[in-house]
């Protein structure tokens, strides 16, 4: 009987030892510290870290493109504004070109000079049949 108890005890101890070994091995297998898994995880993390960078770097050209587009739009707007300004200046120039002619020859004022009708540089009846023209110098 004593031998049987001893044998059972030894068997139990042995089983426990096996179980302990088995449990420890399973824990090892689940551990993330495996070099292979660590490498893979680091690779994934690196990828994850790189991804935003790629997104960012992918976003930069878009932003640059947007900025370029805005710049082009601004350039077009500026060109259009400049063209409008030039057209406006041309219109003003045309008006200015016309203006001196209008200013240089305003409607003559009709007055009297020594009892004779005077209109601008003309004396006398505008319907008179005979015209005397005097080209003169004041010096």
């Amino acid at each position, binding site marked *: 009987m004593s031998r049987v108890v001893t044998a059972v005890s030894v068997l139990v101890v042995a089983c426990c030892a096996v179980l302990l070994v088995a449990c420890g091995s399973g824990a090892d297998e689940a551990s993330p510290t495996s070099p292979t898994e660590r490498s893979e995880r680091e690779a994934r993390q690196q990828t994850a870290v790189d991804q935003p960078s790629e997104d960012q770097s992918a976003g930069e050209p878009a932003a640059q493109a947007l900025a370029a587009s805005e710049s082009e739009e601004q350039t077009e707007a500026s060109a259009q504004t400049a063209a409008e300004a030039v057209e406006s200046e041309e219109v003003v120039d045309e008006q200015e070109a016309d203006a*001196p*002619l209008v*200013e*240089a*020859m*305003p409607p*003559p*004022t*009709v*007055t009297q*000079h*020594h*009892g*004779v009708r*005077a209109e*601008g*540089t*003309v*004396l*006398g*009846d*505008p319907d*008179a*049949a*005979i*015209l*005397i*023209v*005097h*080209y*003169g*110098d*004041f*010096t």
Partner: protein
Amino acid sequence: MLIEEFVASGVARYEFRYMPVLGDAAVFAAVAVSCAERQGGFWPLHDRFMLADQTLFTEAGLRRQVTFEGLDVETFFGCVNEGDTLSQVVASQEEGVARGVQATPTIYVNDQQVDPTYEAIASAIQAIQAQAEQAE
């Protein structure tokens, strides 16, 4: 006498055209008179210049004259100093040159050039009147 006899009576009309041929002073005088013309003051200043009033070539003299004539002095000198009527004077001069005017005074009576004397002008007018009477 010419104005009284033929213009005031309605037979003819008399037109003065700017023909500055005697240098810068002539151009200045023409511009000044044309500036007065803008204010309806051509003839009084024309008459003063034709009297050879040399004070008109000074600012003080010209100011006194345009004030006497009742013109807006500041507007007048603004016009003179800016040469606002220079193009009008030049246009008149170019028209005269194109017509063959080479000296002043030069007189035309209905497109016929005549001597700048009363007798010549009166004779030309009377000849035109005679032709018109014959045509009727």
